[in-house]
């Protein structure tokens, strides 16, 4: 069988290496292409070929068994500590791999002119993007806890340099360090849990040479206290990554200081590792602890929804605003996961994909807008009345914004409504009330999107902005697939839902299958 996932991981690595080596090629042939070098076109070609490979992976994937981890490969890696190279994707993993792979060429294209014309800088930038792509694909397909952990941390390296080295804001270094510290802090706690998991698993009779395989660990009974502690360890790392209130502080800073392309990769894809980890590691590995923590997690998720939305409304910086909207959306995703209903979980899985498309579109379009300002101002107040100046840009922004506020007809709506409806019928105590409490989030979403649109695009055009150019062809090419994807998935969501439905059912079954303590079950019964 063709190792699709390994190839998908390896190809961008090869790309990064080739881009690095392209320096040699240019020196031999002399300065060509106006001094910007081969790096950008090479990287774009590599990322497009990767999309082609992705299609192959989709064809090889059997949707009838979307709940199983397919395209699986397994080799011993460091058997002395039980680590294996084990990859495989279920439907959710495949969709997230697809999201990463599809967004990378768009981001490369969007950032085509963003990093100036310095050849060395361009080469580093695209190489880092390709490196990040490889890690992202790998982390979504990892089926070994140790491998997952290593990739989870390895992703920070390119991300750190992309924020700190290539950002736009004055505080980019600070933001990069903040991001790194938060992530490393979470990773450290997770590491402790990973190590503990190894010893407990070996104690429970798992083969010590393959002790980290997720498939094996799910069968291990860890004991209540240990399970809960480990759940907390994993969960904190994922919550920081997700990000969830109150460990979200790094996100707006990163969004405000990184380039829109970086933010897209970071927030729309990389952060999904947090929610993906909750879904594919926390729930199956620690079912009892997940149920135990669910009421608390749900409450925090709803707080995130409202908190993020309110903060978004109060922002004066366009890119920070988009960052805050993500806090709100991640709240919805987590709400769906931890209410343990097939509908809500499927909605959350779908939302991970949709949020990537919608927020990606919003980030990139906002980036196009900012790049047009003579001073590259990110302040919303610096813009006004641009609807008549740049109608296509305005329209694209509005569509992306409407997707962010989950307008029916667009994919985001389907997922959001699935989460809300699903969460209402969730099994943890108080699910219904929290679901209702999250609904005002949709009103706040309307406020932050339309208020921003109103300030930037309506009224009299601001001085100095009367002659801004409209979206260029390159930029339209970037926006079009995202908008089209949102529309198509909004009208025919079953295209994606076939991939997430079965995994959702399975993960809910995994959590709820464990026998409830008798008195708790009786109590739940009387509640209903």
């Amino acid at each position, binding site marked *: 069988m063709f190792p699709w996932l390994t190839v998908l991981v390896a190809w961008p690595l090869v790309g990064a290496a080739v881009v690095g080596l392209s320096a040699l090629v240019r020196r031999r042939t002399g300065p060509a292409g106006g001094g910007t070098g081969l790096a950008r076109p090479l990287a774009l070609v590599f990322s497009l070929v990767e999309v082609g490979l992705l299609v192959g992976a989709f064809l090889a994937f059997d949707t009838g068994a979307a709940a199983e981890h397919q395209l699986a490969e397994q080799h011993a890696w460091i058997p002395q500590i039980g680590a294996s190279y084990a990859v495989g994707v279920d439907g959710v993993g495949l969709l997230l791999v697809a999201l990463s792979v599809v967004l990378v060429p768009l981001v490369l294209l969007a950032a085509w002119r963003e990093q100036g014309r310095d050849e060395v800088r361009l080469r580093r930038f695209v190489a880092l993007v390709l490196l990040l792509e490889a890690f992202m694909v790998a982390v979504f397909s990892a089926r070994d806890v140790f491998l997952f952990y290593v990739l989870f941390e390895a992703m920070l390296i390119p991300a750190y340099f992309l924020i700190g080295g290539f950002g736009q804001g004055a505080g980019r270094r600070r933001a990069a360090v903040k991001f790194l510290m*938060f992530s490393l802090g979470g990773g450290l706690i997770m590491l402790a849990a990973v190590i503990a998991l190894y010893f407990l698993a070996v104690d429970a009779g798992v083969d010590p040479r393959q002790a980290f395989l997720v498939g094996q660990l799910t069968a291990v009974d860890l004991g209540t206290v240990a399970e809960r502690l480990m759940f907390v360890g994993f969960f904190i790392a994922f919550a920081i990554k997700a990000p969830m*209130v*109150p*460990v*979200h*502080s790094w996100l707006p800073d990163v969004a405000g200081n990184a380039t829109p392309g970086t933010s897209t990769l970071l927030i729309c894809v990389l952060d999904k590792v947090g929610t993906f980890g909750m879904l594919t590691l926390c729930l199956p590995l620690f079912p009892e602890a997940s149920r135990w923590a669910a009421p608390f997690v749900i409450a925090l998720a709803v707080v995130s929804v409202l*908190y993020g939305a*309110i*903060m978004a*409304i*109060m922002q004066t910086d366009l890119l920070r605003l988009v960052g805050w909207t993500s806090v709100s959306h991640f709240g919805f995703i987590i709400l769906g996961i931890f209410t343990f*209903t*097939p*509908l*809500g979980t*499927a*909605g959350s899985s*779908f939302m991970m994909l949709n949020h990537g498309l919608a927020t990606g579109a919003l980030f990139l379009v906002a980036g196009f807008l900012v790049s047009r300002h003579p001073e590259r101002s990110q302040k919303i107040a610096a813009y006004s*009345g641009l*609807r*008549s100046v740049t109608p*296509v840009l305005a329209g694209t922004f509005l569509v992306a914004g*409407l997707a962010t506020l989950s*307008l*029916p*007809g667009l994919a985001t*709506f*389907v997922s959001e*409504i*699935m989460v*809300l*409806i*699903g*969460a*209402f*019928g969730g099994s943890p105590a108080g699910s*219904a009330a929290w679901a*209702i409490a999250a*609904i*005002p989030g*949709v*009103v706040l979403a*309307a*406020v932050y999107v*339309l*208020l921003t649109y*109103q300030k930037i*695009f*309506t*009224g*009299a055009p601001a001085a100095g902005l009367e002659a801004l150019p409209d979206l260029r062809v390159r930029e339209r090419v970037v926006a079009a697939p995202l908008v089209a994807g949102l529309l198509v998935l909004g*009208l*025919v*969501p*079953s295209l994606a*839902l076939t991939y*997430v*439905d079965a995994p*959702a*059912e399975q993960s809910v079954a995994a959590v709820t299958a464990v026998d409830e303590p008798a008195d708790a079950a009786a109590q739940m019964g009387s509640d209903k």
Partner: protein
Amino acid sequence: MNDVIGLAPWLVGFPLIGAAVLLLGGRATDRWGHWLGVAASAASAVVAFILMFRMIGTPPEERAVDHGLWTWLSAGGLDVDLGLRLDPLSLTFVMLVTFVGTLIHVYSVAYMDHDVDRRRFFAYLNLFVAAMLTLVLADSYLLLFVGWEGVGVASYLLIGFWDTGRPSARENAVAAKKAFVMNRVGDMGLIAAMAILFATVGSVSFADVLPAAGGLSETTATAVGLCLLLAACGKSAQFPLQAWLGDAMAGPTPVSALIHAATMVTAGVYLMVRSGPILEAAPTAQLVVVVVGAVTLLFGAVVGTAKDDIKKALAASTMSQIGYMMLAAGLGPAGYAFAIFHLLTHGFFKAGLFLGAGSVMHAMGDQTDMRRFGGLSRFLPITWITMGLGWLAILGIPPFSGFWSKDGIIEAAFVPVDGQPWRAWVFGSVAVLGAAITAFYMTRLFFMTFGGRRPRWTENQHPHEGSPLMWWPLVFLGVGSAALGAVLGIGGTFTTWLEPVVGHAEHHEPVLPVPAIITVTLVLVVLGAALAFRMYAVALVPEEAPRGSFLTRAARKDLYQDAANETLVVLPAHGVARLVQVGDRDVVDRGWGVLPLAVSWFGAMFRKAQTGYVRSYAAGMAGGVLVIAVVAWLVIQLGGGLGGAQ
């Protein structure tokens, strides 16, 4: 019926394709875009007529047809097909939307003639028609919600159509945002309702939910009913979510006619009627619906009496008339038919009135202040006559169409529910009172515009009738205002038509005899109209509004609705938001900042040990060696001497 049902998707399809072509085509379609828009709408209307005639030819019990298209979403136990439900209720709406919509499209070709963005306007209009048809044709709450928010977006785009390049651009944009956000407040109700329905019934499609409504517990049904009412209040500008409608008049007048008078704002009534079985299972919710209707009815009417802006006066009137419909929708099966009937007739006469107002504005250079009109009947005869028909219709003067529908509602309001005569008396009186006030403000509007002995125009006004494209739709709507009620109302044609959907209503006796109700109503209406005639046609109308009584001033300010919203919602919300913002900065962010601070504090402490003096380090090393040696020695001593050697 089944042979033509395949056409139904095209009802939505034509305008959707029109909108897509116009939006994506860009300036290339500027030259012919508006005609494409008209054609798309007209094509829909033709399909609607075909379906209509086929349905009339079908036996009543086979008239409801569900036409599935494709599986929309199927996950986690929620299976929703994207499907259309065609029955007399939805078809009534389809007819209204496509017919009036097409007329308004035609009217707009002339009205928007000088606007550089005319193509965009038609794209939005098409988008609206598509969304509105989705709303009424949906076979599930979920798909209905798609249309529901779709019309919201179209409305948002059209209210804010002039959002740049005009002095009022920013205000228009704000009005558009206000409309959308307040609609969203209502939409929360629909989401919650769907959540409750899925949790209890396991489905959100009408075919599953409505038959199961009787089996719901009363608490559940009440919760769902109230949630749906919240949604309806948002969409139909009912109390307490009414504040956006007046501001929505910032949009071009055809928009006000189509969206904010004839069709979209009545979607709430449609939702109530469509969800009839749920409401019937929840008497409390029904009572709330009636109360909301009654309050809005009076609210709108009172506001209408004081407005000098012709469009705002009509908007207040719309609110009030929808209050009637809502009141009827809360009365159970007896009211449903009249609610929809009034919706239909209102769609015609209010669209006519708005288009007439547009015609007046067009003639007067976009002036909207009625105190600067007067004496226009000679210059705008067609507008005068058609608006006159609309005026008589809304007053409910027999035999004009408003009489047949509104009178039905008033009669139904006088019917005691659950043997509680106080309700009949209260709501009946409110309905009659509303009719009287309606007569007053509509007469005031009509005579301030067309009557009066001398014009109060501003400089250089040369009013004249617009192009035939503008007045032919007026004529059609005028005829509709005059005749539609009689055609459908005499002999209960319309009631029978809707019966397969809303169910048969047993006849209950009102607390007063029917002729008495009609007489009292008519007398009060004529009195109100006469009072207005005396004040605004016989007497001179000052060009500047007099200060007026307290009530007048309050009504001019929409009974302080904006101030109330500001104090009760916006300010507290803003306070909370400020609190969150400050909290995030000073508590959360700074809280995490404590960690690095602690680390650097420790670093600073240890830094002091790094004197840079080699000898200090050497002392440290030697001291360390010494300490280790001493410890090792002590350990060995205590452990029993140096091991090994004897």
